[in-house]
Structures are given as structure tokens and as C-alpha cells.
């Protein structure tokens, strides 16, 4: 075996973040029925109304069929075979970082996020979700001074029930789809953000989700409310330890932007994609939706999707308020046997609403990448405007790139433009880079990052750096 080939094999074999932390889990019994839902709710000390809400969702979920309209090829999932709740055994409220279980801290070290350093250096408040229960929250005091609420979902239920009750399920109805209903029934924890009127959140908010305990699906629930004239930028990033069995993940994210408010939501998703033979990997079924409820509101989604064996995700914007703006910037990369079916929905309801969609799909190995999007202009959305660009890049002759745009226009004054192209990395580009002394992997990474630049530049700076490295790591060994 040549040196390059060996490196490639080694790179493919070693998933950088693949390790298991040895912490005893306080898990729900395997399986899913009403008692599981009650167990989760009781475990979290939830009020009666929330339990009832969960149970309604669960009953609705039982009647829903598994969606089969995607291009994804998935083995039927046995929903009775996993546990739906697991918490680290000790869950005290830490006053300082020193009190945190050292095992846990080591995990963060290995993941490359020294919590205290990162928080201090980057000025980022990190509400780290470790296996569904928040263990540490920083910068809380500073945010509290401005009236910003940034806490775990469970805490919000206890301390701000009126806000949660008002907005929970108001953007993503409980019966919206199969996975949203499942999440609504069994969600474990997640983040809650409320930005009061006129406040510009002084720092980027970020949450790191990690999946840790074996066989436990993670079901986070995120709810962000930006009150009138406020502004917030929220970051979400993910890595998960190596697993043999497919892990189920079904999150729901709801954003509410009131009059003149702006929400920017950025995601870097790098969960375990399975090995080179397509074994293992995370099943990622996410429902993300934002509602521009007031006039002049703006919601912007940016995502870099490199991980997961299966990605099913359509961050959407409902543009209800007049002059509201929706944006979607996406880079999705599939390698080996990964499958991604991702895109967005832009629903124009208000007058002079505007939306922009830029999607970059990269397929390598046997990866299948689908852009699926809907642009709908409702009859009252006079002057609505949409621009969509979908570009696909193919690396190798066994992968696939698909574009499935739906455009429904009910208003004559709307302008909708859609463009899509598909091409491969040109040999000229590769040759040029290689003859200048770049290795094939570096050349590929350079070209791919150039292809994705339009989207990457939308990410906050520290994420942009991480995302570029991710694209390079994910494509290692694809050419040469």
C-alpha cells in the first residue's frame, strides 16, 4: 500500500471525535409508550399542562405514518428499541466550573472545547447540553442584566412558564410531521432564549449538543423569541462519539421574530456519519422553522452539514409580517454512504416579503445529496421577491446530486427566480493546484471551500474557521 493510500485509510478509520465517556446513565427503560412520556415529564418535574401537551403529541404521533417522500434509503427504524431519556447520574447545579464532574470536563477537553477558556476568550456563553441535561451555564449573569433569558428548556419551563406556554408549538404545530410529533412527546431538554424589546444581545449565544449514552436518541427542543426590535445571533454545533448502531435524533427548533426583530441561527453539524462502509452513524431528523411574526422582522438560517448518516432537515421561514425577510444559506456535504435530503421552505404571506436561498451541495464517494425546497407566494403577498440558487458539486462517479424545487405562486406581482447547476470538479482546477505543489487533498479542500464560500462567509467568524476545517476533514481521501 502506498503512503498516500495508507494515510487515506487511516483518515477514514479514525473519526476524530469517536470515544465514549464512562458515566453511568440514569436512563428511561428501553421502549416508548405513555409511561415513557410520563417518566420523562416526572423526571424533569414538569407541570401538569406540559405533561398533557406531551401526551397529546404522543397520541397524535401514534396515528402518523413514517414519511416516505424523500430520496433517503433508510432501514425501518424500531422506535421501541431505544431509550428516550438519559441523564448523567449527578446533576447538581454547579456554581463554578471546578464542581463539574472531571470525567465530563475531560470529554469536553477531548472535543476541543475547554469550557471556561472558550467562554472567557471568545466571549461566548455556552449552555452545554450533555446528554440532554444542562450541566453548566456561563455568562448568565451578564445576560440577565440586559433582561436576556438564556437557559435550558427545563429551567425555562420552571421559571418562565408563561413564555413557554405562549410560544411552545406555535411555529411548529405538534402534528406538523412525524418527527416533530415524536420530539414534542419525548423531548428531553434544549435551549430557551428570550430577548426583550429593543435589546441587541451583546454576545453570540451557543450551545453544544453531544450525544453520549449508548442507544439514547436525543430530542432537543429549542425555542428562541426575539421581542420587538431585538437582535440575536445563535450558534449551534455538534459532534458525537462513535457508535455502531444508528442513533436517532429528532430535534425541533422554533424561532419567533416579532416586529423589527432579527434572528440569525447558525449550525455546524458534524455528527458521526458512519464508517466508510456505511455502517453506523446518526439519523438526523430535524424540524426547524422560524416565524417572522411582525413587520420588518428577519430570520436567517445558515447551516454547514457534514455529519450524520442521514440528514432530513428543512429550516424554514414563515414570512407573516409585511416587509419581513427570510434567508437560507446551506452547505451540505455527503461522503461514503451518507445521505442528505435538506433544503428550506419560504412561505410568503405578508406584503413585500423577501427571501434568499443559496444552497451548495457536495457529493463524494457514494453520498446522495438532495436539495428539496418550497417557495410559496400566497395571494396577499404583493411585491414578494425570491431568489434561489442551488449548485451541486460531484466528486466521483458513484455519488448523486438532486434538486427538487417546488415553486407555487398565487400573486402576479411576485418575482421568483430559481437557478440550479450541477458540475464536477474540473481536472484543470485540480491540475493547476497540484502542479503548484498542493497535495490532491489540499487542492480538493481549496476548491470545495471556494465553491462553498458564499455560504461560509455568512457564518460567525469562529464557526467559519471550524467549518472550513470540517469540509477538508470530511473529504479526505476522496481524490488521488
Amino acid at each position, binding site marked *: 500500500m502506498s503512503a498516500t493510500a495508507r494515510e487515506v485509510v487511516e483518515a477514514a478509520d479514525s473519526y476524530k471525535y469517536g470515544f465514549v465517556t464512562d458515566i453511568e446513565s440514569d436512563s428511561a427503560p428501553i421502549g416508548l409508550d405513555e409511561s415513557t412520556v410520563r417518566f420523562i415529564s416526572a423526571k424533569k418535574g414538569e407541570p401538569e399542562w406540559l405533561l398533557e401537551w406531551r401526551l397529546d403529541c404522543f397520541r397524535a404521533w401514534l396515528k402518523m405514518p413514517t414519511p416516505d417522500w424523500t430520496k433517503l434509503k433508510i432501514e425501518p427504524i424500531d422506535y421501541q428499541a431505544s431509550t428516550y431519556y438519559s441523564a448523567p447520574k449527578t446533576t447538581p447545579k454547579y456554581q463554578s466550573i471546578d464542581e463539574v464532574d472531571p470525567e465530563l470536563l475531560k470529554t469536553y477537553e477531548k472535543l476541543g472545547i475547554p469550557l471556561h477558556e472558550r467562554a472567557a476568550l471568545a466571549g461566548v456563553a455556552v449552555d452545554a447540553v450533555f446528554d440532554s441535561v444542562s450541566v453548566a451555564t456561563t455568562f448568565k449573569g451578564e445576560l440577565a442584566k440586559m433582561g436576556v433569558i438564556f437557559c435550558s428548556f427545563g429551567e425555562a419551563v420552571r421559571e418562565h412558564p408563561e413564555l413557554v406556554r405562549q410560544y411552545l408549538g406555535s411555529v411548529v404545530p405538534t402534528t406538523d410531521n412525524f418527527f416533530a410529533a415524536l420530539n414534542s412527546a419525548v423531548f428531553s431538554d434544549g435551549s430557551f432564549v428570550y430577548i426583550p424589546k429593543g435589546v441587541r444581545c451583546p454576545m453570540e449565544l451557543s450551545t453544544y449538543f453531544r450525544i453520549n449514552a449508548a442507544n439514547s436518541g436525543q430530542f432537543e427542543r429549542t425555542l428562541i423569541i426575539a421581542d420587538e426590535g431585538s437582535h440575536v445571533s445563535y450558534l449551534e454545533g455538534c459532534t458525537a462519539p462513535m457508535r455502531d448502531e444508528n442513533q436517532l435524533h429528532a430535534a425541533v427548533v422554533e424561532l419567533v421574530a416579532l416586529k423589527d426583530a432579527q434572528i440569525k441561527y447558525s449550525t455546524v453539524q458534524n455528527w458521526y456519519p458512519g464508517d466508510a462502509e456505511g455502517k453506523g452513524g446518526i439519523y438526523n431528523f430535524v424540524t426547524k422553522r422560524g416565524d417572522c411574526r411582525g413587520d420588518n422582522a428577519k430570520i436567517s438560517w445558515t447551516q454547514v452539514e457534514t455529519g450524520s448518516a442521514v440528514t432530513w432537515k428543512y429550516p424554514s421561514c414563515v414570512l407573516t409580517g409585511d416587509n419581513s425577510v427570510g434567508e437560507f444559506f446551506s452547505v451540505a456535504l455527503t461522503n461514503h454512504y451518507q445521505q442528505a435530503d435538506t433544503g428550506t421552505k419560504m412561505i410568503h404571506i405578508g406584503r413585500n416579503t423577501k427571501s434568499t436561498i443559496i444552497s451548495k451541495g457536495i457529493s463524494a464517494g457514494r453520498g446522495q445529496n438532495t436539495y428539496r425546497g418550497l417557495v410559496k407566494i400566497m395571494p396577499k403577498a404583493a411585491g414578494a421577491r425570491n431568489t434561489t440558487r442551488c449548485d451541486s458539486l*460531484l466528486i466521483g462517479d458513484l455519488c448523486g446530486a438532486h434538486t427538487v424545487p417546488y415553486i407555487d405562486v398565487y*400573486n402576479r406581482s*411576485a418575482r421568483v427566480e430559481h437557478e440550479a447547476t450541477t458540475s464536477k470538479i474540473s481536472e484543470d482546477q485540480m491540475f493547476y493546484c497540484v502542479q503548484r505543489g498542493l497535495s490532491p487533498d489540499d487542492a480538493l479542500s481549496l476548491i470545495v471551500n471556494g465553491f462553498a464560500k458564499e455560504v461560509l462567509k455568512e457564518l460567525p467568524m469562529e464557526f467559519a474557521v471550524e467549518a472550513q476545517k470540517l469540509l477538508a476533514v470530511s473529504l479526505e481521501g476522496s481524490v488521488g
Partner: protein
Amino acid sequence: MPPSTRLDGAIAMTSHDPLWLERLRQDAKGSFAALGWPTRKLEEWRYTDLGPVAETVFEPAGEIGASSALAAIVADQDPASDLAVFVNGRFSAERSRIGALAPGVYLGSFAAWSATHGEAAEALLQPTAERARALTDLNIGLFSDGLTLIVPPGVRMERPLRCLYWSEAANPIAVHSHSHIALGERASASVFEIWAGAGGYWSNAVADIVLGEGSQLAHTTLQNEARTAYHTGSVVVRLAQDAQFDGFQLGLGAALSRREYRATIAGPGADFSLSGSTLLTDRQDGATVTIVDHTAAGYTPADKRGTTSNQVFKVALADRAHGVFQGRIIVREGAQKTDAGMLNKTVLLSDRAVIDTKPELEIYADDVKCSHGASVGDLDEIGLFYLRSRGIDPETARRMLIDAFVTEPVERVADPAVAAELRAVIAARLAEIKE
């Protein structure tokens, strides 16, 4: 009423069929009964509600007496072309006008051809993965007749062919016609189909087109059915190496229409071009569906050419019209060097017109060039301003722009007589559109 009971009346009509056809029809009817009417739950029917057709009780199509409207339209046809006339789905020899044909050419009734060429017809009507399902099954179960055009290798048809499909009845009738065009190696032909009629009817047409190596077919369709009629059509095209299909479709008629093209581009160097215009008003509902499949056979390492396809569709919708464009390009694994493009442009001329468009790419090979584009909007304001600045009144300026928009794809029609006729029909329709 379930479909199976609806079919019983029609079975008697076709009982004099040869045994092989009787068997095929039974199987097809069984398949339709099992599938039922296409519903909007099927992705390919997502935007078209066939409810009005499914709810109508149709009588089997019969003969018609003297029809002055039909006589007028027959008299109107270009005398330099051969003319094949079909009335309520049956070939009408007395109304047709077919000159001397080159040896080996068959041009005429599908029923007559299949009676003498049982084996070829039987092979043709076998179920395949390429053709559409329920409505094609129903067509095979019930069709009465249609066109057959067989051109042997090397023969170039001297005169263009016109096919007039006329339907007329007092009570609703269902007309199922099944056509077959086959061109041998390096053969060529030009076919202009006109769909028209009077009264209430449902025209459900299927055409099987097989293009041999290096053959060329110009295929133009004018769908100008009665505005009280329903029209569904499925054109299945298979292209061998270096074959060329040059298609055009103008959609103006019918209360509800849906035409689909299913092309399999199977040989290197083959090219499938299809363009069209749709102009609808009132409560007309019209859909165009294309599925263009670039198969792996299109590329062989020995012959480094791939296959090409190109589609341009323009849609103009007035009043409460509903337009649909669903295009799909598939590039199979190994179909390298494919070059495929698709463009759909729509203008909405009223506040209540609606367009649904879905231009889709499905690509499994890397050395390809594929693109699609779609745009929806009102007329170009800059264009309007330009015309206004030249002293043209707003009404005329708008009409000029609409006319230019809808007529532009007609440029691609090679036959000047056909192109001129299409422009005239568009102008006539535009004159009656209220904005």
C-alpha cells in the same frame, strides 16, 4: 363509481379484437382497476386534480354525422401536407388526404395496422417501465384507433404530415386514441398534431415514438381542444444513437389538460429537444409534465459522446387560470458527458392566476453539465417603460410583450407553415384575453 364497473360498457365495443389484444386489454383494465384514478397524492399528479374527469360518466365514443366545424377545419389545412383525420378516436379515410408514399412507408390507421401486423403491435403494447401507469392502462384497455407512421430505414418523408384529432358529441364521451410512430435508421419525418373538437368530451391519448439510429423527427402539437373538454396525453419517446427528437407543444385549449412527455435517451449522440408555450385564461387548468431520462447506455467509453436534452417552456396565465410545469431530468449512473438543460418562465397576467412549477434534477453521474432555471413574475417593467417611452399606449405595450413572450419559443419550430399557423392561433387567442 369504482373504475371497474365503469369499464364494463366499453368491453363489448372491443370484443371483436384478436385474442392477443383482448388479453392485453383485460390485463390493462385490471391494472387500472387496481391502481384507480391518479390522485394528487402521487408526486407526478401533485398539481392536477383529475376529479372532474373521474366524476363524469362518459359514453363510449361513436360516429358523428356531418360536422360543419370539422369540415371547415379540414378545408383549412395546408394542402402541401399529408392529412390524417381522426374523428372520435377513429381514422376517417374519407376526410384524410394522403398522397403517394415511398415504398415501405405505412401511414394510416393504428387499428388497421395492428390487424395486419399483430406481432409488432402486440410487442408495442406490452407494459414497460417507461410508460405512464393508470391512464395509459385505461387507454390500452379502451382505445379504438390512432395513427401509425412507420418509416423504413433511410427514407425521408417528402411531405410533412398533419394529424387532426377531432372529437365531438352531444353527451360526454371518452376518446382513447393510441398512436405509434417508428422511424428506421436515418429516416426522417415531420408530424404536426392538432387536437380540437366541440362539446364535452375527454380525450385520453397515448403515443409511442421509437426513433432508430440517426433518425430525425420533428413533432409539433397544438392542443386546442374545446374549452369544455378534458385532455390528457402521454408521449413516450425512445431515442437510439444519434437520433433527434425536435418537439414543440402549444397548449391553449381544454378546461382541464395534462400532457406528459417521457423520453428515454438511450444512444450516444442522441438529442431530445422540447419546447412549448401555454396560454390559458378563464378557469382553465393546464399541466405539462416532462421526464427526460438519460440512461447509462448513452455513454460508452468507446464512443465518448454523451446524450443531450434541452427544454424551454413558457407559460402565460390570465384570469383564474392555473398552470403547472413539472419537469424532471434524470442522469443515470454511468451516463457520462450528459448535457441537459431545462428552463421554465411564467408570467401571471391577473391577480387570481396561479402557477405551480417544479423543475427537478436527479443526477447519478459526475461528468455532466446540467442546469435548470425557473422564473415567475408579471411582465417586465423595463420593457413596458421602453415601449411607453416610444409613444405606445400601455394596453398595446402589454399586448406586444405578452405576444412576444408566448410566441418566442415558436421560433424553434422548423416548418415555416406550421410556425405561421401557430403564431396566428396565438394572436387569435390573445385577442380574446381580458386582462
